[in-house]
């Protein structure tokens, strides 16, 4: 079984203060985000349970390969990084096009990603990618069982907790709660330095540059302004953070006497 773990796709809102709509991640940080670590961990667990291979994939700017190397140190066998200047300004529908092409090229049995739990757009990206592939998708999965020809995934929805069956190949977005990622050993970190990282561009994936970037985006940001502050928190920290001070506040607001 081939498992593709997709990383570095967290939103700009989660990784940078630059742009809340920007979809393109950055591979430059040296440490894998806790969310990406869960995707890689889940992929490895599936691979270890059967006879599988884990490939790490990212659509990101490749200033350095820190996060990819860390994912390789977890135990993935190789990595693919899509980097192309034409990706600048890509939004969700543009990046989903690139991810779909990458998945089509790699042909995994299952592709796994994880997003910041408050990152609704993370689920959106995955649903859009699956639509382009014509693959089933389950987002925010808290428990996953992979069988021979399908998966059973559990998730929470507004009306309760559900379990669904999706045939392979499929896309799974895991929730943060799904696992506790391992710590790579020093030996694994050293070994990761020599594992192959395949750099590819849009032309390698057969994507015309006008279909991505700001030209291929369906949305464009027009303004960023400071939001008016709603509440103005009173801070109790250090020696001031006492139970007496909290009770005094509750009394001031007449919740207690």
């Amino acid at each position, binding site marked *: 079984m081939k498992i593709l773990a997709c990383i570095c796709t967290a939103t700009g809102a989660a990784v940078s203060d630059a742009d809340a709509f920007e979809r393109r991640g950055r591979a430059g940080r040296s440490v894998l985000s806790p969310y990406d670590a869960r995707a890689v961990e889940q992929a490895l667990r599936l691979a270890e349970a059967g006879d599988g291979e884990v490939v790490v994939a990212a659509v990101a700017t490749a200033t350095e390969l820190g996060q990819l190397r860390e994912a390789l140190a977890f135990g993935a066998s190789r990595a693919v990084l899509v980097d192309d200047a034409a990706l600048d300004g890509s939004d969700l529908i543009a990046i989903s096009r690139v991810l779909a092409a990458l998945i089509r090229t790699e042909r995994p049995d299952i592709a796994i990603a994880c997003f910041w739990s408050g990152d609704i757009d993370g689920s*959106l990206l995955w649903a859009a990618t699956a639509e382009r592939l014509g693959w089933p998708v389950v987002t925010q999965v808290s428990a996953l069982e992979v069988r021979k020809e399908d998966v059973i995934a559990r998730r929470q929805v507004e009306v309760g907790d559900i379990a669904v069956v999706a045939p392979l190949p499929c896309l799974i977005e895991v929730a943060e709660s799904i696992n506790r990622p391992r710590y790579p050993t020093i030996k694994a970190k050293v070994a990761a330095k020599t594992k192959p990282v395949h750099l590819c561009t849009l032309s390698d994936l057969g994507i015309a540059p006008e279909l991505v970037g700001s030209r291929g985006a369906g949305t464009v940001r027009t303004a960023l302004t400071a939001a008016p502050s709603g509440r103005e928190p009173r801070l109790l920290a250090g020696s001031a953070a006492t139970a007496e001070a909290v009770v005094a506040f509750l009394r001031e607001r007449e919740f207690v006497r």
Partner: protein
Amino acid sequence: MTTLVPIDVTDRMIRDDALGVLSKAATLGGEVAALLCGPTAAALAVQAAEYGASHIFVAEDPEFAKPLSAPRVALVAELCTRGGFDLILASTTTVAGDMMASLAARLEAGILWGLTDLQRRGDALVGLRLAQNDSVIVEAVWTTKRRIGLFRPYALPPVRRPATAARVESISPVATQTQVRLLECSGISESNGPSLSNAEIIVAGGRGLGVRENLELVRSLAALLGGVAGVSLPLVEAGWAPRSMQIGQTGTVVRPRLYIACGISGQIQHRVGMERAGTIVAINTDPTAPIMNFCDLAVVADVGTIVPEIIRILQQRGAAKDKLETRPGPIRQVDAISLGRVQSEPSPNLAASRAQITRSET
């Protein structure tokens, strides 16, 4: 411009935030259609009309009772092709998120999400959302002919409009290769205790509680204040608390007068469920946790240390609100009471609490 608002009908009702989206759509001009999905949809067509829909599609097939996006995607795509809708708006739910993103890819439509408002400025339709822990307003527009917008849960108030004639049309599911099948749906069992949704005071615990025993502190403080205990998503996922106690987007959306968050970071999933509370007190060891910016009192402390102290003080003073409300007569000065010594005339409740303290001391 013609707008379609897909809405899931559950528990024989339309959620307030879905009515809010309909109300907003009605202010933008052009025809507004609602797609009501669910077994009791037809009965709610009148309500959809009252909030701005002039054309109501009713999809009551049992297929739409399941929380799966694929049948909805097929139906909305079909309606868009047939009816020429160029703006699709919905409030965010787990199913609506999956559905709208799939539609964006299928229809090659730009998608804006987390919207708190949508404004018509001349010919332009501008979406507004909050980012960076709600410190920044992002404005964005669509560049595609067809536009998809997802609103933040409960971002928009429902506004009832004068009744106008509305067309109601029953529709059947569109054939799809349904790939994801529902195996089971647990539903949410009713909680035995008082309801979170009507609670005046809520004390909630999150991952920052650290150990399971600390959830008892949350319950104790809630009980002492005459309130209800709740939790955030991670504690439900960890099996510490039942789903009925969950506050947040996929849990209960609450609006108490007082909300005390113990060890809750305040990620958006939780935030949308409690941000309309009157007073918010956040206790967290991490001063940079998002919740520390949208509360009224930010207490940088360990829940396991400070909450037992708060409980001790409240018990000593007999200061809990429920006791206050049930106590007859004028309000008495209780400031002078400390360590179980009553320096002014004690009320019966204060005397009782003193007795309790005396017992615990002996």
